[in-house]
């Protein structure tokens, strides 16, 4: 009798021990999935979402991307000759370049597009990163202020190099001029010649000299050469006209200073 009772008692103890032990083992199994694993999965999902957002690089005018690619590379070079109203650049040029590279990969031919200076997709340079940084921010629907801060921070940390003509007199990036230029290119509209007010407080002077009307503009802080070109010509690419006309006071496109009086050629 007593053996039966003690046997049952031991069984009960064993059963209790099992019940107590079993739940304790599960949290141990769950803890094997770490926080790192969860964030890794989330990051992978976020990255694929970003990858799905198409950047409209195909619609950027070739001269703009060339300008951004060329000028950002080396701040010591003189202003290059940019292509003037070049051959009509359609969104097909990037598509064609990739088609031709696909075909040449199979047939081992050397294939290039005949019309110049349309080139294959611009090489990934610091300036291309600048362009894609802004394009991505635009794509994400960020505000102008956000883009301004984003670009200036990236420039300060050396992540991107900023085209000289977008460096303002106070050492920042003229994101307004850049955004205006990009939006004009993307919309495909021909930039219109703006009507610029002159007189007190505008910084713009219109003077008759030797029977010819001449305009002068006094640089204020926040102005960049690209921004001034947009202001007077509606097109950031026309900065060259202003730069050439003022070589005596401008050693390089990024060295404009507050208070400088720049001659604005009439075109």
């Amino acid at each position, binding site marked *: 009798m007593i053996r039966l009772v003690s046997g049952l008692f031991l069984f009960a103890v064993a059963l209790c021990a099992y019940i107590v032990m079993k739940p304790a083992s599960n949290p141990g199994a769950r803890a094997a999935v770490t926080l790192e694993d969860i964030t890794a999965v989330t990051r992978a999902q976020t990255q694929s979402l970003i990858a799905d957002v198409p950047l409209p690089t195909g619609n950027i005018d070739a001269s703009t991307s060339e300008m951004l690619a060329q000028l950002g590379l080396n701040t010591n070079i003189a202003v290059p000759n940019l292509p003037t109203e070049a051959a009509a650049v359609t969104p097909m040029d990037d598509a064609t370049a990739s088609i031709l590279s696909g075909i040449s990969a199979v047939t081992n031919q050397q294939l290039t597009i*005949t019309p110049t200076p349309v080139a294959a997709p611009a090489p990934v340079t610091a300036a291309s990163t600048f362009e894609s940084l802004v394009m991505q921010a635009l794509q994400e629907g960020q505000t102008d202020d956000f883009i301004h801060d984003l670009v200036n921070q990236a420039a300060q940390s050396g992540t991107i190099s900023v085209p000289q003509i977008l460096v303002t007199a106070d050492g920042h990036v003229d994101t307004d001029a850049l955004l205006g230029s990009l939006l004009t290119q993307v919309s495909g509209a021909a930039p219109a010649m703006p009507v610029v007010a002159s007189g007190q407080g505008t910084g713009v002077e219109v003077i008759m000299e030797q029977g010819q009307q001449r305009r002068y503009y006094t640089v204020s802080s926040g102005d960049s050469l690209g921004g001034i070109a947009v202001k007077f010509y509606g097109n950031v690419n026309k900065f060259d006209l202003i730069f050439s006309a003022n070589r005596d006071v401008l050693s390089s496109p990024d060295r404009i200073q507050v208070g400088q009086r720049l001659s604005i050629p009439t075109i």
Partner: protein
Amino acid sequence: MAQYRHIFATCVALSASSAATAQTVQISDGIASVEFTINGETLTISRNQDTTARLTGAFVKTSRPCPPNCILPMSLGNGIFSIGEREVIDFLVNTVAGGTGLLIDTRRTADFNKGSVPGAVNVPTATLSPENTFQTDILMALGATQNDGQLEFSRARPLVLFAEGNWDPQVANAVAHLINAGYPPTQIIVYRGGLQDWLHLGLTVTGP
């Protein structure tokens, strides 16, 4: 106990090796997969071995509106005829890997990037249209040469063109653009089944 484990391991090894040598789903009797090299890259075409696999997504639809998705005839006129998957594979192994011919996916680039027949190049139908300022460049990549401003096609490459399926007008339009530009019909072949038929046989598709 130990001797059973030994026998069991041998059985597993035998069945695994026999699975490797005789696949259930082959391309033709004795040919389970096909390899070819394009520009140094080796591509393999084989079939999905899951005998319960089915088409998914848009490719299961039977009745797309016609027009524009009308049933494609087997011949698109001018003596241009259609081929099937076995001929496409032969074309890839011999003509494309040999560097003379091209398998052309005429769909839009976004669709091409999601997956296509291995070894195909993407030439979207719109780029073959005369409205594309670069049409001439593409025709020259396909073998045309310029003679006094005129295009000449004596060295035009043999092309096999395809699109989404046997209802997709993109391939017919691409053929029309080529013919109108002067491409010789003898060098144009159509894989009428397109990606839908390719997938419907579980054949390999390049990933995104």
